[in-house]
């Protein structure tokens, strides 16, 4: 990847990362938003959205409950989209097998990234002393908060810069060494990734009629999408019109 492109993505990653860690939590940092943004900047919104959709479904698994910090979906989305688009071996839209390859590499990076994330948050304890510093109290607290914003920005900027700059070339070379016979399997793997997120979500959802809801959703979905096709929002609206009353009717039945 050209250094200027790496720099551009790293600067953007810092901003998107702030949303996850330090400011707002507007969910610009969710894969379904972050990856298309990176895609847009790199000239391929469609592939960015595809990557965002797969990662969004995969990351149905992580919940930031209490002090627990789940693996970083934002960093994964930014790195996967940037590497898939910026270091793609072919011309035009990247092959799905290549995106799956990038996903596997980024997945391996998530554990070291989680260690680094924890380390940064531990080091952030110095901000408590900054906030309690003598002098103008309001200003010292504001200084601590803005320093925290700066730390988190730098974290995303540096990690993105380092990973993209150091691994793009090697990743592409390693992909070139793969046997062509493995590529169809990688393509299929890419479309099966969501199964891991969905399965994890199901383990967390306890609902007395959960299975019934899931089966009903699948049945209605097969009907409307095979009937109406995939284009347009009509089938989705039809799906919602079936789902919302079902939820209320079930609740009424339960209370009777």
């Amino acid at each position, binding site marked *: 990847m050209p250094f200027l492109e790496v720099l551009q993505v790293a600067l953007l990653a810092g901003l998107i990362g702030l949303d996850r860690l330090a400011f707002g939590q507007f969910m610009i940092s969710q894969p379904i938003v972050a990856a298309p943004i990176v895609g847009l900047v790199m000239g391929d919104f469609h592939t960015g959205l595809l990557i965002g959709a797969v990662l969004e479904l995969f990351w149905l698994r992580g919940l930031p409950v209490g002090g627990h910090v789940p693996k970083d979906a934002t960093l994964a989305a930014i790195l996967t989209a940037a590497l898939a688009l910026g270091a793609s071996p072919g011309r035009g839209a990247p092959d799905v097998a290549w995106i799956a390859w990038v996903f596997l590499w980024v997945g391996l990076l998530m554990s070291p990234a989680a260690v680094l994330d924890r380390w940064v948050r531990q080091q952030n304890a110095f901000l408590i002393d900054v906030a309690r510093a003598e002098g103008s109290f309001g200003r010292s607290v504001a200084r601590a908060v803005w320093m925290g914003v700066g730390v988190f920005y730098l974290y995303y900027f540096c990690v993105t810069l380092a990973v993209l700059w150091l691994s793009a070339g090697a990743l592409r070379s390693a992909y070139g060494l793969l046997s062509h016979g493995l590529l169809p399997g990688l393509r299929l793997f890419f479309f099966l990734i969501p199964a*891991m997120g969905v399965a994890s979500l199901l383990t967390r959802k306890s609902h007395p009629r959960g299975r019934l809801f899931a089966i009903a959703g699948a049945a209605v979905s097969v009907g409307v999408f095979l009937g109406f096709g995939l284009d347009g929002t009509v089938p989705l609206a039809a799906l919602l019109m079936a789902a919302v009353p079902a939820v209320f009717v079930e609740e009424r039945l339960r209370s009777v």
Partner: protein
Amino acid sequence: MRAVGRGLFIQSAWNYENFQGVGFGYALMPLLKQDEAQTAPVPDVAARHLKSFNTNPYMAGMILGGVLRLEEGLVSGQGSVEDVENFKSSLTGAFGALGDSFVWGGVRPLLGLMAVMLAVVSESVAPLVYLICYNGVVLWLRVAGVRNGYAFGADLIQYLKTINLQRKIYRMNGLTLFMVGALLPLWALQVRPEVPVFFAGLFGLLVMLVYLLWKAERKGVPLVLQAAALLLVSQLLAQTGWFSF
């Protein structure tokens, strides 16, 4: 509105010692300053609120509003510092758990699923619609939270009962499970919409894999092993020619 605005920074100095403590002090400070002329020194009050604080970021506004009300009560001689401390510490855990279940466990996955479905049928607007819907919900939590936190003060838990988040979580769980079921055929269909047999095969495969991975997840099989097994299955199926790409 100032508290809502400053509340956006509640996690800016997040750390493992006092979690959102610095951010909470930052959000509270300008509101305390209004009383600076006639009350106890602001630093003393604010220093108390730089202590450990950890709750769901969207629910913090409610506690912020309640604490502000109690601090104002202190100025006029009602209550004690211990009351404020107890109020804060007793609510952070409960509000955190409720907020995590409602937002992280309910709103976010549900809207994430719907955004992916929208991306399949009408791609360009999906991220925008997701952001609008999500922020519509959390803006309500943030703005109404601060306002009602202040209005209810020590009786904040009563307000929580009136909005009945538990019922909303229950409904969202039902809706999420419906959407999970609806997603799988849609996901299978979008891969190769022109080949019905492929759709049927991939849908069946997805359902089977979700079931097996659900079992694995319940037994605590590590994610790396799950991913490796999935990769192996993909390679085997592709090599046998059942799913040719």
